[in-house]
């Protein structure tokens, strides 16, 4: 239970916490989908707190599978093979990482329209220990053929991405990290496979995903006072990745910084480096994220501050890049 103000971290098993604005998006959107479409079913690996309304109103469309994530993914695959559109809701640290093989073999190879919703990814559960960091998941997910990988950066974009992808014929993973600054006033239009230009600017491009987008936007505001015009691009789609927009940003600004709440091994930064290498774009590139090292344990706000995934932290990275 938590009765105080917006908590510094979510009690994932509290229905009361689940009713706070940031947490409501997934539960409300899934309820809406279930009510709009007769083929949607929601599978949970002990993540029912955010779906209290759905469980109550449509118990037959809510399948609780307990603390057995891998089974949940394969069960969803079986339902998808019989015409259903299953959404599997899991905790980030025990989501893509734990279920990589089921996602690959049972979902992605067969191109089944399973949706894997990994809440509390990144450092969102970082208080609980190193087991609860989910910072390798983008690397794993984007290496799986046929899998679409999206990462909302705030509550409106969570809603936008869940809504806009409903008819996508193949599998999707949603990497959601709820501990985010608000970026969008309302659910944005996000073109499938596109980068969203959150802010225009010609001096440097910051390509960010998830929590990184809010930090990048805050950094852009700080740097504006110093006369630096920062272009902020939201990589809501990590796969497919908008290669043309990345190349354009690199050519037009000559300096690219990537920002992510993920290991620097294999995540957005690596993906952008691959794009620039593939297209032989001569641009300065810096990667900002989490080190390939044992990470600290604390509440997410403290961890984000510690690792510089804040407006000030990103602004410092931009200054360093431009001084190079």
């Amino acid at each position, binding site marked *: 239970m938590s009765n105080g103000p917006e908590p510094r971290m979510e009690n994932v098993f509290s229905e009361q916490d689940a009713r706070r604005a940031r947490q409501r998006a997934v539960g409300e959107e899934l309820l809406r989908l279930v009510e709009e479409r007769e083929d949607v*079913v929601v599978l949970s690996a002990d993540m029912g707190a955010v779906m209290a309304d759905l469980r109550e109103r449509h118990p*037959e*469309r809510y*399948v609780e*599978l*307990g603390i*057995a994530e*891998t*089974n949940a*993914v*394969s*069960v*969803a*695959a*079986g*339902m*998808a*093979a*019989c*015409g*259903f559109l*299953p959404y599997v809701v899991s905790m980030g640290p025990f989501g893509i990482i734990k279920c990589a*093989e*089921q996602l690959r*073999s*049972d979902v992605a*190879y*067969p*191109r089944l329209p399973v949706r894997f919703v990994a809440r509390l990814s990144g450092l969102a559960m970082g208080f609980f220990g190193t087991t609860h960091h989910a910072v390798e998941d983008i690397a794993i997910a984007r290496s799986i053929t046929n899998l679409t990988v999206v990462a909302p950066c705030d509550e409106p974009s969570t809603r936008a991405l869940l809504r806009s992808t409903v008819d996508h014929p193949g599998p999707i993973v949603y990497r959601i990290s709820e501990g985010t600054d608000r970026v969008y006033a309302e659910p944005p239009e996000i073109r499938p496979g596109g980068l969203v230009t959150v802010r225009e600017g010609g001096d440097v491009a910051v390509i960010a995903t998830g929590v990184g987008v809010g930090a990048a936007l805050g950094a852009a505001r700080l740097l504006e006072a110093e006369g630096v015009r920062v272009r902020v691009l939201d990589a809501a789609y990590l796969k497919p990745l908008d290669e043309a927009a990345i190349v354009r940003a690199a050519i037009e600004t000559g300096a690219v910084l990537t920002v992510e709440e993920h290991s620097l091994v294999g995540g957005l930064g690596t993906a952008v480096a691959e794009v620039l290498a593939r297209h032989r774009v001569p641009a300065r590139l810096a990667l900002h994220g989490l080190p390939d090292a044992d990470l600290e344990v604390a509440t997410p706000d403290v961890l984000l501050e510690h690792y510089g995934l804040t407006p000030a932290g990103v602004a410092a990275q931009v200054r360093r890049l431009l001084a190079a």
Partner: protein
Amino acid sequence: MLERGRAASPEDLRRRADWIRLETIRLIDRAGLGHYSSTFSCAEILAVLYYHTLRLLPDRPDWPDRDRFLLGKGHVAVGLWPVLADLGYFSKAWLEGYGHLGSPLNDHPNMRTAPGVDFSSGSLGHNLSVGVGMALAGRLRGRDYRTFVLTGDGELQEGQVWEAAMAASHYRLGGLVAVVDANGFSGGGPTSEAMNIEPLLARFTAFGWRAVEVDGHDVAVLMETFDRLPPVGSEVPTCVVARTRKGKGVTLTEAAPQSWHLGHMTAEQRDAALAEIEARLR
């Protein structure tokens, strides 16, 4: 449509199982490598399911009311391909390219390339979970298809199987049938030595299943067992523990089941094995 429980004599099905063994030897011969002895152990099970038990519509592999069959022990797909071709799911000419570049028929079944495959397999331990999903889907849609999952006994060492077994009884999936080809061996040796999975009946019963033990080579018993499955809408899943012999039906593979888990017979061995089976079929 091929109706459930359609007429077939035990003698026909025995011959059909031996035909599966013959075709398996021929296919592996062309491919250059394959799983002989674990295919031979389930030849009678495949014969009874496909030529007597399952409700099928080969002209429409995606017919929503078909009974589902999942080959959890996907490494015996070589025994499934001749059956699916014979039933008309695809041209028999496809068998010619089995195991070669570009063939839709692989060593393990791929639902995207081979009509009649209800789900891909290859990674052991997944398909019982997939079967739970299919059985749940059938109930939500009000359909009366059954979902059969053929697993190996070594496959039961995978923890996910037991997650699925829990979910199946929790959700009271009476239309779900697990058939265990209990041949006593995994790839590396006797199942009991690698990691004991017995007592299987007690374990499945403890997980909330109805469990029965049968001789997996006795086609009459298999027919009767599948004929007497509880109604699809009933509330307890069924596990048929089929006690089988790895390598069954060929002297060479029965004598050394482990050596022939994966292999390629020489021309002399192949001809002797074919002759042995053909003599029974005459």
